[in-house]
């Protein structure tokens, strides 16, 4: 192994994001540290979030005078050869990717909300400040609450949780409510398959979320905040809890935030494995210590939310974008995007995709650019057959729809939804009747049970699809399924039952042959076996 005594304290970055850890980042970090120790080379190992190029994980970066040079995907077995080849100087090796910031996949993006993720040590408060942290909060604290709300409204920021409701309007409702006790609730129950941006933001830049929630507190007059994180995300829970403790020590939370009259404290609550608690009113019930049963609206949570008090409920990405809006101004953010979809969206490429990960870019990019240019097609190398956009309640779109611009209204007009920006790609082995059945099955399993269309309709949906595939009175059952979908759409209390027909109907509309039962069943995946 080459020794580099002339270069003390070379800084090496290895992600601590749970996706990177799931393919060996901890083992790579440990191997690098051991190799350096035994060669008596001083290194500083920094554990960052992930840059979001997940097919390159574990991605190791080294700080050089030419910027951060990346290597990946690295296994522990690669480490000795990498060090021998001159990893610490950023030298050549088959795994060398060059300066990470210049990689086209990353350089073409517009990282706004995710600007720091993968760059900094998530729990290093000084690193956060060095990279512009707290600029938005300091700006906000100099403004009146009404001016902060106006800034958020002017930015055009819409809720990133899926529904796309303008954040500023929601905040104004809470601000205008009388009363001393108001709450800020961050919905971090990211249960949709194909979405992982909330998790990566919490693990990769937790202070940003704290900053965003604190700005919201100042804007509406709240003194207490809850961050509801799903139990499937233990790393995000641990990171957020640690960050909140550090923020309290630093005076970023608690009484007199940053020396101003603002008092705001923040608590993490962990869900208990219920998809429906991602729905805002179910989440509030769960936070109150009850079953996660959907509430009928009105009253809206902005007026009667947590414990009946005015409450801001926003998603992680919404609240995580607020500091940037305040720091850079509403206009800068508003200038990004198209039509009424302003700013950036954090798209998540998952499923059967060659280059999956986080693509943050202005609204208006097409699905084709995301799947083909960023994603590089399927991982299996087979043709893309469909992509489900916007989570398990989103539509399955065929490649002929891939030129649709990613824009809330354009998607809605096409009978689909942008949702949370998750995109799950399937190759040509997928059985779309099975996927439609799964959508109903999932709804049946995860329905809170309060309304009949969702609770019973989903069970009937599974049965009817089974009959269609079995060829039993196919036309009658197709008509019945259509009727059932209509009923669920119109009659359900919330989006769980109301949107489950979306994947079902889109599968039927675009892939009707799969419902004939006999079509090439042997080549279809057993994905839902």
């Amino acid at each position, binding site marked *: 192994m080459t020794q580099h005594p002339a270069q003390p304290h070379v800084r090496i970055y290895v992600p601590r994001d749970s*996706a990177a850890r799931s393919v060996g980042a901890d083992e790579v970090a440990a191997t690098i540290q051991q190799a350096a120790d035994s060669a008596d080379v001083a290194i500083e190992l920094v554990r960052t979030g992930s840059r979001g190029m997940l097919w390159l994980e574990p991605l190791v970066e080294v700080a050089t005078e030419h910027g951060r040079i990346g290597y990946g995907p690295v296994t522990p077995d690669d480490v000795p050869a990498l060090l021998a080849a001159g990893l610490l100087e950023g030298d050549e090796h088959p795994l060398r990717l060059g300066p990470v910031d210049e990689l*086209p996949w990353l350089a073409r993006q517009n990282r706004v909300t995710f600007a720091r993720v993968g760059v900094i040590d998530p729990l290093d408060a000084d690193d956060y400040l060095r990279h512009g942290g707290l600029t938005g909060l300091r700006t906000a604290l100099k403004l009146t609450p009404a001016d902060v709300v106006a800034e958020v409204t002017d930015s055009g920021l819409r809720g990133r949780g899926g529904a796309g409701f303008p954040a500023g309007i929601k905040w104004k409702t809470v601000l205008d409510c009388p009363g001393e006790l108001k709450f800020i609730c961050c919905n971090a129950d990211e249960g949709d398959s194909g979405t992982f941006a909330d998790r990566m933001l919490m693990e990769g830049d937790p202070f940003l979320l704290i900053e965003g929630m604190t700005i919201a507190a100042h804007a509406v007059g709240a003194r207490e905040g809850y961050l509801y994180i799903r139990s499937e995300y233990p790393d995000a829970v641990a990171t957020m809890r640690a960050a909140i403790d550090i923020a309290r020590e630093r005076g970023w939370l608690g009484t007199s935030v940053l020396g101003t009259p603002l008092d705001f404290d923040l608590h993490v609550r962990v869900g208990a494995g219920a998809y429906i608690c991602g729905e805002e009113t179910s989440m509030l019930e769960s936070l109150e210590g009850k079953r996660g049963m959907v509430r009928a609206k009105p009253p809206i949570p902005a007026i009667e939310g947590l414990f009946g008090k005015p409450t801001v409920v926003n998603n992680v990405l919404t609240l995580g974008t607020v500091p940037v809006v305040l720091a850079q101004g509403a206009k800068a953010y508003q200038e990004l995007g198209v039509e009424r979809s302003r700013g950036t969206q954090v798209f998540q490429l998952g499923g059967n995709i060659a280059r999956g990960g986080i693509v943050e870019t202005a609204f208006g990019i097409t699905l084709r650019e995301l799947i083909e240019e960023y994603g590089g097609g399927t991982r299996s190398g087979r043709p893309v057959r469909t992509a489900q956009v916007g989570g398990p309640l989103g539509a399955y779109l065929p490649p002929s729809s891939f030129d649709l611009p990613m824009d809330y209204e354009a998607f809605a007009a096409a009978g689909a939804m942008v949702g949370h920006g998750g995109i*799950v790609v399937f190759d040509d082995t997928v059985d779309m009747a099975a996927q439609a059945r799964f959508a109903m099955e999932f709804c049946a399993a995860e329905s809170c049970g309060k309304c009949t269309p969702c609770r019973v309709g989903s069970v009937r949906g599974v049965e009817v699809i089974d009959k269609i595939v079995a060829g039993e009175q196919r036309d009658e059952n197709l008509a019945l399924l259509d009727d059932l979908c209509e009923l669920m759409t119109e009659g359900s209390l919330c989006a769980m039952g109301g949107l489950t027909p979306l994947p079902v109907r889109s599968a039927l509309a675009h892939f009707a042959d799969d419902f004939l039962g006999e079509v090439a069943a042997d080549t279809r995946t057993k994905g839902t076996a």
Partner: protein
Amino acid sequence: MKIRTSDPTVEQVVRKIAAAHREQRGALLPILHAVQAELGHVPKEAVPVLADELNLSRADVHGVVSFYHDFRDEPAGHRTVRICRAEACQAQGAGYLVEYVRQMGLTMGRTAEDGSVTVEQVFCLGNCALGPAVEVDGRLHGRVDTERLGALLHGTDQTRRDGVGATPDESEAPRS
């Protein structure tokens, strides 16, 4: 976890946990998580104690415990293996992992007869670009194939030194 006679009773444990969380707003979920962390499950005997502590009906408490998938009424096996069956993992062959589990004579949602392992399904672990994803005792694993699942089920996984995720087609540089 087995309760030995020298151990505190369920009632004592639950009352102590309830006391520690009582000041929180809507304390029941944090309390149930704490009870499960302490005892490995939420025993039926805990329900009336919690009802008493929180001034709720037994039905209220039972309703909450049974609503959430996380709370178990009996202890899990030595290892808990959770296989993601959501769409993104389905697209990458999660179904084969479920089939493999069945071939191993295990049932999803059950604990093996020898108590070694509990296998469950989960819908989304947030590792959608590196599926199929499997979680073992809180630790996430990506791109799991049947061979690695076998090792994870048997507790013989040799970490990840065998180069998971490093096939040549995946290391290809991004297109410009």
